[in-house]
């Protein structure tokens, strides 16, 4: 039974399109995150949500918007996709905010053509 799941696993799309990546966790955790792993392999935090409230919003373009319909889901919406958005996006969750260990999903490889 997958703890943190993401769909789709692969996403290929054209520049200018709008796309979404879904994330679900069945661990009962309070906090969920989105990370981006770029071509240089750095994993960088994008957002986190705690009890439906945005806690961290790093310097990401406002074309990226996280949406959390409930505590178990944190979806990532991306508008007007650009070539530089191509990366692997990871969803993660932790029991509480600043709880240390975070559990990651399998990642979504986004390719923008």
């Amino acid at each position, binding site marked *: 039974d997958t703890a943190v799941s993401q769909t789709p696993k692969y996403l290929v799309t054209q520049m200018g399109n709008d796309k979404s990546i879904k994330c679900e966790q069945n661990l009962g955790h309070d906090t969920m995150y989105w990370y981006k792993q770029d071509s240089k392999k750095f994993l960088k*935090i994008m957002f986190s949500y705690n009890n439906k409230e945005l806690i961290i919003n790093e310097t990401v373009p406002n074309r990226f918007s996280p949406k959390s319909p409930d505590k178990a889901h944190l979806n990532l919406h991306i508008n007007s996709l650009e070539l530089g958005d191509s990366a692997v996006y990871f969803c993660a969750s*932790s029991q509480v905010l600043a709880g240390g260990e975070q559990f990651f999903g399998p990642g979504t490889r986004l390719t923008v053509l």
Partner: protein
Amino acid sequence: DQQVKQNSPSLSVQEGRISILNCDYTNSMFDYFLWYKKYPAEGPTFLISISSIKDKNEDGRFTVFLNKSAKHLSLHIVPSQPGDSAVYFCAATRLYGGSQGNLIFGKGTKLSVKP
């Protein structure tokens, strides 16, 4: 500016020997450190962590050492097994004082354990 650095992109070790992966950090406010293991096409998996009030934490074959004065930590795997072959990420955070759970990752070290 990289706050967490893993200066060795790769490491090759013989099965049964010790693997030592190193990590340096620059931010003295970090008080909690983690190691993650990542296989291709999978997400990072939590391996072991250490609080800044300790200098060593052990879990089976995995031991993490923390040298706060040098701002350095290392992960020891003994004995190394072929299944340990993966990319290992070092991460740091500030649990107390408003970090809000932000993990800062290093670039990773690819470990290859040869039979």
